[in-house]
């Protein structure tokens, strides 16, 4: 029986020494005189166990983690001799964190060798695309519509309607643009896919091309993700060479090709119109809408702009049918959502669950409480423009509408946990500061509002006219919310106001300076 050892080559795993662990495994194998194959997979998303080494001696993949280089000889010795080891977690798939998930999009991530095309196909790859190649564009769009899929980037717009709108445009050129500018703190799902299962994203884009009539696609990846960029470029080359991209897809005569573009460190380029400007080689300033990109997008042509996770749902929906996907979820939030649990949490990682899971399940059952062991205070949902939540919101189900009714949003599914040491006034100040640093500068409420907002929170922090300044911040937030061109200025009020409303005690800490 041949032995296979799986060691992730995902950026996060590498950041805690996965390469050193892999070298140590090779050396230990030699020392043991054992022949084994070392394979580099993506990450399973159980980051507190990284580097997570899976050893398969013929009885399935057994998980060990976190395995640092110095742990390798003992771990390997135990695994080869069938002995127990403190770092052993048993069969990987039986680890509760993984077993309790509903992985549709992440089914292959961490399992396969990301750039092995044969393995991709063996694990269900191209099922969706093969079916799409036999369908009319309207039928493909209808399938997406029927699945209930909504934009996973944050806005939650029905994907099928967007696809249909682009499909119905008459133009000599149309584009599919994948937004992989995953800038929200607390999110890493797009990165994990691009590094761990890049073919899936490309397959989703080809399906989108067939559905909308576009023949060219762009993936806009942030420069902070160098490994995702190189991995995606290699994946494009492999698919092109294998005839899955280019002038004659799988011998059907259909045309679709994909280019990879790297961003340059601007958070605002995650906003769709700003991203289009950037792909055109321009400053990433936001465009006013209308016209929407589906009608006039990249280079003025009809353009489908979708997030990585939206496009990655397409192969599942086409492969297994709209009803299969729709059966997951609750209310108008259908399917599954990859949640990312991050920050001050014991078991941070990627949790793909159907909509309807509660925040408490995510933070307590999966997350296991805070990393520091101190009391939980708050979590920020949906990135730097998302709301902070309080203790009594933890039983809310993850659902677009329910969260909106409670003044929060799901965004890209990032959940950042804070313990009791957090100063919410400082978090509110940071929200304005971040907006100031990252604003594109096109509209006044965002450009000026962010600066004035930061200054005013600083006054509150110093104890100057606290009540009056809080009222001023609230009023400013209203202007930014109603008057900004895009979500940058429009949603910065969310973290600020939620912090003020849910944690007022943090805004009244400084000794009073001025007479009030």
């Amino acid at each position, binding site marked *: 029986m041949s032995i296979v050892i799986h060691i992730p080559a995902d*950026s*996060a795993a*590498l*950041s*805690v020494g996965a390469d050193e662990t892999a070298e140590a495994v090779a050396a230990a194998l030699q020392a043991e005189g054992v022949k084994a194959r070392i394979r580099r997979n993506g990450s399973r998303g159980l*980051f*507190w166990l*990284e580097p997570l080494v899976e050893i398969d001696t013929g009885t399935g993949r057994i998980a060990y983690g976190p395995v640092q280089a110095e742990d390798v000889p003992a771990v390997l010795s135990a695994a080869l001799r069938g002995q127990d080891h403190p770092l052993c977690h048993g069969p990987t798939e039986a680890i509760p964190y993984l077993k309790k998930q509903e992985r549709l999009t992440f089914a292959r991530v961490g399992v396969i060798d990301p750039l092995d095309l044969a393995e991709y196909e063996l694990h269900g790859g191209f099922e969706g695309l093969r079916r799409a190649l036999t369908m009319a564009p309207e039928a493909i769009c209808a399938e997406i519509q029927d699945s209930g899929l909504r934009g996973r980037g944050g806005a939650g717009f029905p994907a099928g309607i967007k696809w249909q709108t682009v499909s119905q445009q008459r133009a000599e050129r149309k584009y599919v643009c994948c937004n992989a500018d*995953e*800038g*929200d*703190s*607390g*999110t*890493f799902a797009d*990165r994990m896919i691009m590094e761990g299962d890049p073919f899936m994203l490309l397959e989703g884009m080809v399906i989108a091309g067939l559905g909308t009539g576009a023949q060219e696609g762009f993936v806009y990846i942030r*420069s*902070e*993700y*160098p490994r995702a960029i190189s991995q995606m470029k290699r994946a494009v080359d492999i698919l092109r060479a294998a005839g899955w991209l280019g002038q004659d897809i799988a011998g059907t005569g259909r045309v679709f090709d994909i280019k990879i*573009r*790297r*961003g*340059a*460190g*601007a*958070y605002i380029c995650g906003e769709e119109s700003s991203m289009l400007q*950037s*792909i*055109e*080689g*321009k*400053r*990433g*300033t936001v465009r006013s809408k209308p016209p929407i990109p589906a009608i006039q997008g990249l*280079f003025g042509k009809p353009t489908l702009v979708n997030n990585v996770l939206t496009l990655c749902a397409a192969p599942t929906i086409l492969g297994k049918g709209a009803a299969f996907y729709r059966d997951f979820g609750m209310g108008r939030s259908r399917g599954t959502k990859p949640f*990312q*649990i*991050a*920050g*001050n*949490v014991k078991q*941070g*990682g*990627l949790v793909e669950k159907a909509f309807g899971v509660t925040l408490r399940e995510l933070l307590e059952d999966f997350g296991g409480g805070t*990393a520091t062991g101190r009391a939980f205070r708050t979590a*920020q949902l949906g990135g*730097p423009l998302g709301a902070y939540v309080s203790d009594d919101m933890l039983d809310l189900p993850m659902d677009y509408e329910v969260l909106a009714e409670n003044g929060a949003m799901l965004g890209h599914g*990032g959940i*950042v*946990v*804070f*313990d009791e040491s*957090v100063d919410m006034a400082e*978090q509110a100040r*940071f929200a304005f500061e*971040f907006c100031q*640093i*990252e604003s*594109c500068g096109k509209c006044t409420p965002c450009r000026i509002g962010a600066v004035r907002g930061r200054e005013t929170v600083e006054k509150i922090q110093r104890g100057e006219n606290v009540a009056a300044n809080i009222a001023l911040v609230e009023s400013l937030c209203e202007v930014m919310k109603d008057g900004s061109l895009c979500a940058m200025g429009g949603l910065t009020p969310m973290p600020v106001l939620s912090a003020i409303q849910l944690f007022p005690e943090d805004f009244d800490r400084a000794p009073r300076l001025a007479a009030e």
Partner: protein
Amino acid sequence: MAAISARDIESMAVSICAAHGNEPAELLEILHDVQDALGAVPETALVPIAKALNLGKAEIHGVVSFYHDFRASPPGRVVVKLCEAEACQAMSARALKEAILARYGAKGGAVDIQPVYCLGNCALSPAAEVNGRLHGRLNEDRLVKIIAEALA
């Protein structure tokens, strides 16, 4: 950097633009390539790029100055991009930054400490990138050791 003359910069910029088909839509890729080759996008590169792409120098300057990635002069020997976003804040990134700044000083020295907002390593925070390599689960001791190794 002093070793590279304005003429060398110009010819390098021209050939990078040509490799991208002198296509204005490829401007970000061109600027990245120039910075990868020279460590910066120097002022002297702007006019040749503008000429090659048939754009105005102001347009090129506008793009260069908009994006945080591009810099006019090469950075210090060791570039530390320290994540200052929320997930890292929740794991004491602010204190880590203060400790590192106190030790290595602000900009200008051999160690160039730059803020960055999210490296996508949020479940292993605090995170930083040192000379292009990502590190997670940092604390002051670990980061100091990593920087010291990079300086050695």
